């Protein structure tokens, strides 16, 4: 992988860099932004906000609910046992198991969605450890050879910018 990027001291400078890259003809999906904390007060921090995570969590909950219902039905009818005069399949006590597995399903679906949709576990992407020191990285991965000079100018035009190539 080759890349060119700039490191900026604050969100405002990073936003300027993003704007310059856009002006140079790069689409948002081509621009990489890495920050040490959420930057929702800047335009670039609003990218990729839409998510199906809520719906997937609900789906996971439904799967958990169906599993609990199936488990309760299967286990109670496969060995019918009278407990204190309760029906063999009694709704009131089973609701507790159904509730717990519903929530467990929603939680597990949420975490699975996070791992997949946030690209966790993927390697060899543009990164600089200085992001951990508070810097904000703005760059382009695998830029076209002819655009390198233009990119360097755009990224370096912001005061205190530190431009790097890999």
């Amino acid at each position, binding site marked *: 992988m080759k890349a060119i990027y700039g490191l900026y001291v604050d969100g405002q400078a990073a936003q300027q860099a993003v704007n310059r890259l856009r002006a140079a003809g790069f689409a948002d999906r081509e621009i*990489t*932004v*890495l*920050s*040490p*904390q*959420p*930057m*929702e*007060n800047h335009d*670039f*921090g609003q*990218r*990729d*906000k839409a*998510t199906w*995570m*809520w719906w997937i*969590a609900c789906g996971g909950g439904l799967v958990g609910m169906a599993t609990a219902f199936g*488990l*309760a039905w*299967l*286990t*109670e009818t*496969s*060995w019918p*046992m009278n*407990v204190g005069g*309760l029906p063999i399949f*009694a709704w009131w*006590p*089973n609701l*507790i*198991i159904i*509730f*717990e*597995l519903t*929530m*467990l399903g*929603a*939680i*597990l679906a*949420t*975490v699975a*969605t*996070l*791992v997949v*949709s*946030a*690209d*966790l*576990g*993927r*390697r060899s*992407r543009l*990164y600089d*450890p200085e*992001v*951990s020191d*508070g810097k904000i990285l703005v760059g382009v991965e695998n830029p076209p050879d002819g655009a390198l000079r233009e990119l360097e100018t755009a990224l370096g035009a912001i005061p205190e910018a530190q431009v790097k190539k890999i």
Partner: protein
Amino acid sequence: MHTSWRFYLLVAVFGGIVLTAFVAWMSQAYLGYGVTGIRWPVYWGFYITSFVFWIGISHAGTLISAILRLVNAGWRRPVTRCAEVITVFALMIGAMFPIIHLGRPWLAFWLIPYPSERMIWPNLRSPLVWDFFAINTYLTGSVLFLFLPMIPDFAVVRDKSTGLRHRTYRMLALGWRGTPKQWHRLETAMQIMAIAIIPVAVSVHTIVSFDFSMAPVPMWQTTIFGPYFVAGAIFSGIAALLIAMAVLRRFLHLEAYLHPVHFENLGKLLLMMALLWGYFVFNERLVTYYGNEPAEMAVFWRTQRESFAPLYWTMVVCNFVLPLVLMGIRRFRTITGCVIASFGVVIGMWLERFLIIVPSLGHKYLPYSFGIYRPQPVEIIIAGATFAAMVLMYVLFAKVVPIISIWELKAGEHIPAALIPPATEEHPLGELHP
């Protein structure tokens, strides 16, 4: 990074206590349950007391943290991780007790619903099986709720470490880079988890209360037990959190992060829970008193006037009088005041669990089932050592993981005024930098 000899000494001392308890448990398994004081009719003693107590303490973290996250309380930022860790470790300790309590602990797996040879399944209509499902759901949720916001902090440590430490944190950081997409997904996930974990936390202690209220035992079969147990759990959880925060502040020198305002806010919560606890106890006692059912009144007077009265009134002082005075009067609502009140609450809540269990079991409906309970050394060692286990796990955790969320603090520093909802206006994050 230099590690002080005090750390090793602390680990050695508390590790030694935990090891002693493990040997005591092994001896109980080898020699048989007769070495304990648990015998007919009091089958639940120190072990189930400790089980209920630790499950209660676990409500410190995830529940409080989830509520504070949902209302976007800015002052939560340095507090949440300290709290969430308590939940995970307290649940681990609490969940051990039903196994310790077994005469044949190697058969604990019978609680797991798996297709056995004769298709005999756990009875899903039993409160003990509900416990299994509820505690495991809460533990899974709490571990994930703790782990997810640690991922960006693992990335920070990954970038600042070398060698084996670097490789370990790189693995834990799951390739975190900090793209806007990752931040959005993480925050959405935390919101969903917070919403899901609150009813689960409430259900866990309600279900623990069902272990009692589903049984025909004097003073157990009452509808108030669910909310009474949940309130007590949150109460003891806040107390544990205050103690943990004060210790961390003192020994890890976190004065810059854990401010007096954090203690004062949690102190107010402790006061509110003390009042709520008092309200529930009053309700429970008054209804029993008016019911005037002989077996229930016998237990009632045993706790208030007779053999258990010293423990009962100590509980009332620790859980109600002490927090009311120390947290109610503003000049006492200092860090020291919070710690004293919290120690009182922790002691009082352990006594409360004990007083719910033992006096009732020792004095049921007919005289043939009257009996006494004398805890034996093995029970005292195991129950006492769980406190050492908690300290040990907490110390080890604080050694390897940033105990205060780095990215959440940074996010608090950069939050624009327009994004601060009204709920947090009273304590904006500027307080972190007086």
